[in-house]
């Protein structure tokens, strides 16, 4: 049971097919506790499938996955008590106010004093003024912030963020980045999926690249950069960006 204390997420040989389409072909992944871990991949690489399996929303065809020490297949209720999921689209209730959304989640997590929890989170995510308004009137960035705030209720050990900034304008993206950094700063493990390479560069402590159903590389940004030959000094020194690393490893789109 050492894994329980050392790893937030431990995945071995995970496979998942949708009819003929083999999306995951043996994913191995270990995420240590704390910090932000980015799962990079092109559209359709299977990032969301990995997250859904880890969040107990999908069953894997083969392989094992443990989250916070609990097996997703056999200890699903314990996994659900340890995590929260923020999906690709802000999963908020449009008709309720921001505060009511937070109170709802706090109640469903069976916590005492849901009103105070809601007010604290509204303050923390700069939503106090908008708290009483219907979410339908919120901007994209505010919605995402509320979505993140809802994910933090009950202090889950692991937070999954599936493409948290897809469809946001640049300013709203920066707002979300701040919120994610703050979250990780409090000791929560964040597994982030993204197709934006600069997002991973900005946020992640460690990065894994999912390609053709497997993790093809995993490490810190510096380690990933070292996979390419060192920069040649010409007139201008050009360091490879993570984007270069990604595209070289993944190869041109077929």
């Amino acid at each position: 049971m050492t894994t329980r204390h050392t790893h937030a997420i431990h995945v071995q040989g995970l496979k998942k097919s949708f009819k003929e389409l083999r999306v995951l072909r043996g994913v191995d992944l270990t995420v240590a506790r704390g910090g932000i871990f980015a799962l990079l991949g092109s559209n359709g690489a299977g990032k969301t499938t990995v997250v859904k399996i880890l969040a107990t929303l999908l069953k894997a065809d083969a392989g094992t996955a443990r989250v916070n020490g609990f097996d997703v297949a056999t200890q699903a209720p314990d996994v659900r008590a340890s995590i929260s999921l923020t999906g690709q689209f802000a999963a908020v209730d449009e008709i309720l106010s921001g505060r009511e959304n937070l109170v709802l989640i706090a109640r469903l997590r069976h916590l005492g004093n849901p009103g105070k929890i809601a007010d604290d989170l509204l303050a923390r995510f700069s939503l106090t003024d908008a708290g009483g308004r219907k979410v339908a009137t919120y901007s994209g960035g505010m919605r995402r912030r509320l979505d993140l705030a809802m994910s933090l209720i009950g202090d889950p050990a692991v937070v999954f963020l599936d493409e948290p900034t897809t469809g946001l304008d640049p300013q709203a993206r920066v707002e979300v980045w701040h919120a994610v950094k703050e979250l990780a700063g409090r000791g929560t493990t964040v597994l982030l999926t993204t197709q934006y390479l600069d997002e991973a560069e900005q946020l992640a402590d460690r990065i894994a690249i999912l390609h053709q159903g497997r993790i093809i590389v995993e490490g810190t940004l510096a380690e990933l950069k070292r996979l390419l030959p060192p920069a040649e000094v010409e007139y201008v020194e050009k360091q490879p960006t993570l984007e270069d690393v990604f595209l070289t490893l993944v190869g041109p789109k077929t």
Partner: protein
Amino acid sequence: MTKHFVGDTVTLLGRSLRHIARSPDTVITTAVMPIAMMLMFVYVFGGAIDTGTESYVNYQLPGILLITVASGIAYTAFRLFTDMKGGLFERFQSMPIARSSVLWAHVLTSLVANLVSLVVVVLVALLMGFRSPAGVAAWLAVAGLLILFTLALTWIAVIPGLTAKTMEGASAFSYPLIFLPFLSSAFVPTDTMPGPLRAFAEHQPVTSIVNTIRDLFARQPVGADLWIALCWCSGILVVAYVLAMNTYRRKIS
């Protein structure tokens, strides 16, 4: 996690009742269509329809009540569909809650919303001259039968709510249900219908339910129709519940 079933269902029920309170148009539109039909049938066609003894407004009310429920459950499918599409469903399912409470909250909300619409329709019928000598017990029996009918149709509505790809698809299933009372004893006596149609009309569920409610309102003995109506409603309820739960389990595997 089943120990939280009641608490979670109540919390989620509170949420969707708030939705209804904030968009009362869903309850109003549910009631408007049957009321418009009732006006048309009573004041346009009613004079020309010979139903025997009763006043026509009394005669057609049971059918209108069933149409009210059939159009009301389209919103149940719609609300479920919205939760599925918006990702809220996944959020709830990834939380440590009693998972079936998500469905039950929608089903109970459907019941409350439909009962409100039914009360509105009955009040309008009273204004139009509907009168019933029925006692409290008969009214309770009518309410009980309508609740059973609403639950049966609601569980049918859950299936497209979970599986539909588009919003139109989520509510289109209710059209045949709304149409069914027209092929029954709800608006005209079945004995003027041509043979095959008459056979269908007399043996489909709506006729037995309508006849039972009509007899209860008129303070007449209900006879075998009551048992046929109860069998239809419970049968549909059980089949739809099993299918809906299977669909649900497949969706959340």
